[in-house]
């Protein structure tokens, strides 16, 4: 299969023009045609192949070069070195509502934005009903200038346009974090459908949940270099571990706060495996960590279970102080018993974290999806005891 996007040794430098001196030097370099060494390297020798049907996430801290990478693939920026080859229609949502003119009405903006992607006037008119339906905006709102829109409405309009374009490659940069929850879900559902019908996705997100839900693979960027790439779950875990360690280091030096898990086990099976959970049994999540890592007063454990659409099903808190009144140097073991017999078959996510007294994250213990096997006629997430009786 011919890859959709191929990046070969792509590097990107940004000119440093913050001071007047920089500008003058830049002018001098342009005039004398000498190379401008006064630059900042944002991406360094990135090679990447995206096959049709692949879904990939780019993760990394702020300033790692994620957005720059997306902009390069979208063609907005030009690489300083290397080559990018793209095939087919690339639709990039680098920012929802990017490319909209504030004075222009919603409809007119849709038309001009569509022409940015090479869609003709007739083409856009045939697509308009679908776009409007997806956006959920009414006639009156669409005829208002975009400057009167809330950011959520702009997000709706922007995403709706993408859905109609059906691009070969969809690029999104943190766009799922905009808009209200119901629209977010709609977008996620659409992306899932788009992926299952053979679409290709490249996204930047800070939400592990979205990444693991939508992406098969992930690439971890740090300071413009690829640190890891491969299976989305593995890369995300590695990224989390590192950011926790970094976080922990700074905390450790102050008050030994970071908790590192030795292991987290479901019924003696590694939590990291995607095993089906038997609904009729009580599942035990056993977590242990070394004794020298202390839990402070006021800290608590929080366990949450999410449904497929990101909906929170339950959130349980456990006060750490009460549970861990034991010798400080003994290794800690926390065992939680879960009965999932009330969950309907489907995919779920469980996460467990330790929070401090101000709800700040101390440690990210578990972030795992699991499956309740079986079939059910009921919709939703929970089985609620009920009876039918005709009278």
């Amino acid at each position: 299969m011919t890859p959709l996007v191929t990046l070969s040794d792509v590097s990107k430098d940004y000119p440093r023009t913050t001071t007047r001196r920089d500008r003058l030097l830049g002018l001098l370099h342009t005039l004398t045609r000498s190379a401008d060494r006064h630059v900042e390297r944002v991406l360094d020798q990135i090679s990447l192949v995206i096959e049709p049907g692949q879904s990939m996430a780019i993760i990394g801290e702020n300033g790692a070069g994620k957005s720059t990478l997306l902009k390069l693939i979208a063609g907005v920026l030009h690489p300083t070195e290397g080559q990018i080859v793209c095939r087919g229609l690339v639709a990039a949502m680098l920012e929802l509502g990017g490319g909209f003119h504030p004075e222009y009405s919603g409809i007119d903006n849709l038309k001009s934005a569509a022409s940015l992607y090479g869609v003709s006037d007739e083409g856009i008119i045939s697509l308009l009903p679908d776009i409007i339906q997806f956006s959920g905006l009414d006639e009156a709102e669409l005829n208002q200038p975009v400057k009167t829109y809330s950011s959520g409405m702009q997000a709706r309009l922007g995403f709706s346009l993408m859905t109609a374009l059906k691009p070969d490659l969809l690029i999104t940069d943190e766009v799922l974090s905009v808009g209200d929850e119901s629209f977010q879900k709609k977008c996620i559902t659409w992306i899932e459908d788009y992926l299952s019908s053979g679409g290709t996705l490249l996204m930047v997100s800070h939400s592990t949940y979205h990444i693991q839900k939508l992406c098969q693979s992930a690439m971890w960027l740090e300071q413009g270099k690829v640190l890891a790439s491969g299976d989305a779950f593995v890369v995300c875990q590695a990224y989390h571990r590192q950011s926790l360690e970094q976080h922990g280091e700074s905390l450790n030096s102050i008050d030994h706060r970071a908790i590192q898990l030795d292991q987290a086990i479901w019924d003696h099976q590694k939590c990291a495996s995607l095993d089906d959970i038997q609904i009729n049994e009580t599942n035990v999540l056993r977590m242990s960590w070394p004794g020298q890592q202390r839990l402070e007063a006021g800290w608590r454990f929080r366990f949450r279970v999410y449904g497929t659409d990101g909906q929170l099903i339950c959130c349980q808190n456990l006060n750490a102080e009460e549970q861990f009144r034991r010798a400080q140097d003994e290794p800690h073991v926390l065992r939680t018993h879960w009965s999932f017999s009330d969950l309907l078959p489907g995919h779920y996510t469980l996460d467990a974290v330790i929070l401090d007294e101000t709800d700040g994250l101390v440690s990210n213990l578990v972030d795992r999806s699991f499956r309740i096997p079986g079939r059910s006629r009921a919709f939703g997430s929970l089985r609620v005891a009920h009876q039918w009786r005709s009278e």
Partner: protein
Amino acid sequence: MSETPKEVAPIERDDHVHVIEARKGFRSINLKELWDYRELLFVLTQRDIKVRYKQTVLGVAWAVIQPLLTMILFSVIFGKLAKIPSDGLPYPIFVYAGLLPWMFFANAISQSSSSLIGSSQLVSKVYFPRLIIPLSSVGSGLIDFAVSGVILLILMLWYGIGWSLHLLAVPLLVFAVIFTALGVGTLLSALTVSYRDFRYIIPFMVQFWMYATPVVYPASMFPEKWQWLLFINPMAGLIEGFRSAFLNQPFDWQGISISLAVSVIIFLAGVMYFEKVERRFADII
């Protein structure tokens, strides 16, 4: 329940391969790409026109008021007070025939020079040939240009100047003015992205340029021997040409030719510089 995506008419798209490479130096304009994006040029031009008089009370009437007021003002100051000669024509119509192309040109270059910065949202978020942006702001002035042209034709009847065959030269001159405006406009728009100083330079430059151009005075005020120097300013030959065409005066073909040649050079230089620095825009805008 999740929505199943409905079948819609497939969008026309050619499966062309898009190669983005690190390149240096000058390159030719990608005319095919520009042609592929003609729809966008049209839409953006339309958008500029619509937005131009939005939220004004008088609306499109400004396209009529602006040149007429300028004509009256200039007739009083330069015609009556300074008594500048006007080749034997009534001063108001003499100056209006010069103002017609000049105002289009001046608006076009000041609008297009700020057009890229004004569209930074677009430039930093979506890919398209950037040349479209200054092109569309030059294009959006064409409506005003046409309106002023019609007013001139009416004024000619008012002042008893008949419509002559000389009017046939107008399309050629209009094209030449558009070309010059495109060249200067693209050049200034690209320069303004890197050096915002141009935002302050351009208003002065436009004023200075007007006085260096025979708008309020006739080229005949210059000694014959040195007139060719005047025509190195492409607008000089073109504006004299406009006057000859509308006001039924003899054409100074030599002057017009010099100006045309210079305007072609400016156009090529402007577009080439633009294309050279185009790929840097998103970095610094």
